[in-house]
């Protein structure tokens, strides 16, 4: 696959703050590339530089192999567009919002009408043309932002936290549209997210950005399942436990944590280890049930957070675990702070940091 966009030794400072530090990155034609990093790691700056609306202090940007400079910036910029994290809309109708970029490209009116209609159809907001964009709900507004970018059908689409803080319906529509645009139109997509699990759902290739530097690059699987100390550090994967591991004869090891808790794992490590368990690998139940899973703990819910379709629970079971359940399960199990719950997870879910 040929390279569509490339950053070469890019650095950017805002005053004393180093937003990007010697970043080199290649995005190949037709791929979905995920840029994972916590808030403030420089993701937005990187996207703005790729979108040619921010100039790097040093380094080069290439789009379609052409180096971006002052003289060609306005032209090269047309082959990419960025959807901002914070939904930004013009104070006008949905139609005028979506048509804005098309009008700048001096398309004929009939073509604009058709493109706007198609874009709205993609985000499942057909018929919204005459509504005032700013009067729509948060999720609808973000879909309008996406439609406005899709209407331009640029070879490169940049998305900054496209689903942060949205309702589940909008999240699923947006994720579906992203995949569809990639498959049907061969649009190359770069998504910035702090949510590793979104990366897993949408992406093939990923890079991890920490404090303005790319610290790791590879497939999403490599990043998520590899022994990435960086990822654990960044995603503040809550279920990180330190303890002393002893390997038993049956190919499993028992990790005795500093408290009384013992976690069984499939790891063959001895001595002091740090491990983590992904919150969604832990099954929450009201009662103990028989299963093959080696780890069962009983505890109490001490915290509930999260909006949208997923709820995160903090459970004190000798050690503090963070688990993730769907809102539906949360309601059906009648969970709340103080609820007594069982946590169950497999020995193979225990990852070494």
């Amino acid at each position, binding site marked *: 696959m040929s390279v569509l966009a490339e950053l070469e030794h890019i650095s950017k400072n805002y005053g004393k703050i180093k937003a990007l530090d010697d970043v080199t990155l290649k995005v190949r034609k037709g791929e979905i590339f995920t840029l994972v990093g916590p808030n403030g790691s420089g993701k937005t700056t990187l996207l*703005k530089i790729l979108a040619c609306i921010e100039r790097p202090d040093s380094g080069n940007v290439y789009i379609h192999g052409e180096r971006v400079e002052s003289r060609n910036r306005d032209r090269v910029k047309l082959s990419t567009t960025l959807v901002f994290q914070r939904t930004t809309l013009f104070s006008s109708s949905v139609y005028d919002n979506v048509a804005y970029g098309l009008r700048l490209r001096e398309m004929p009116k009939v073509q604009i009408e058709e493109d706007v209609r198609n874009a709205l159809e993609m985000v499942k907001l057909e018929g919204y043309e005459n509504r005032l964009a700013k009067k729509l709900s948060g999720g609808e507004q973000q879909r309008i932002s996406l439609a406005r970018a899709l209407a331009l059908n640029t070879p490169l689409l940049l998305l900054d936290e496209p689903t942060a803080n949205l309702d589940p319906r909008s999240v699923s529509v947006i994720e579906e549209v992203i995949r569809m645009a990639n498959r049907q139109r061969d649009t190359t997509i770069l998504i910035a997210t702090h949510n590793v699990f979104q990366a897993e759902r949408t992406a093939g290739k990923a890079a991890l950005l920490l404090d303005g530097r790319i610290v790791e690059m590879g497939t999403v699987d490599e990043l998520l399942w590899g022994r990435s100390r960086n990822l654990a550090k960044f995603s503040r994967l809550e279920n990180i436990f330190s303890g002393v591991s002893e390997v038993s004869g049956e190919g499993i090891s028992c990790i005795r944590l500093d408290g009384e808790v013992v976690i069984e794992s499939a790891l063959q490590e001895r001595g002091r280890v740090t491990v983590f368990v992904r919150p969604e690998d832990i099954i929450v139940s009201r009662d103990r049930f028989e299963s093959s899973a080696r780890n069962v703990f009983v505890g109490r819910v001490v915290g509930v957070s999260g909006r949208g379709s997923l709820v995160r629970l903090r459970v004190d079971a000798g050690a503090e675990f963070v688990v993730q359940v769907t809102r539906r399960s949360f309601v059906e199990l009648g969970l709340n702070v103080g609820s007594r719950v069982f946590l169950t997870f497999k020995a193979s879910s225990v990852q070494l940091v």
Partner: protein
Amino acid sequence: MRKADAIPILIIVFFLTIFLVLVFLVEEFTEGFGEAIRLIASSDPEILSITLRSIYISGTATVLSILWCVPIGVALGLSSFVGKRFIKGLFNALLGIPTVALGLILYLLFSSSGPLGSLNLFLNPLGVSIGQAILITPIIISFITSAVEAVDPDIKDLAKTLGASETEASFMVLKESTSGVVLAVVAGFNRAIAELGVVLMIGQNLRGRTRVLTATIALETTRGNIAVSIALAIILLTIVLSISLLTNLAQRRLK
């Protein structure tokens, strides 16, 4: 009705009440008020021409002022540089410039012996318009700067990523701040049509040439022609307040 619409109406009611109280208390006023109403009702040609000239001169002043205020206001609102606060502070301070002082400075510049005497702006309606345009510049720039600063800072980047050039993106910011810009223009026009210093100093109240509402009110009052003054004051108030009212209505319609 919304609060914003009620304010100009309340002001009209307030002034009418004062007028009515005066009508009953002051004898001169009682006679004058009746006469004033008759003058307005009969659309006296002199009063009509003074009114139209006032609107024309101050309208021209506003248009002239917009020519430089919009680019400066937008640039100031969008940029961030060392000394920006100083410049903004300067314009804010100039909001309160005494019109007579400005009139005097312009008189010295425009009069036939002044450095700009050759331009023939003294005793010229265009000269008065230019003077008023300078007077209202700080108001319009301050208002536009604030309006532009109030626009979502991401709008410019948004326009750019959708394909806009630097200029097109700035224009979009201006468009997003339309209501603030309209307010700036209205405030500027109202200040221009209501001022006296520049009109008297540059225009010298020449009948049929530079005579406008404010100067005539001052003149006729000193002459004892209270009726004419009251008639002109009512007209002036009506112009200023109905423009504010119309602006409010129009902005609501646009939203």
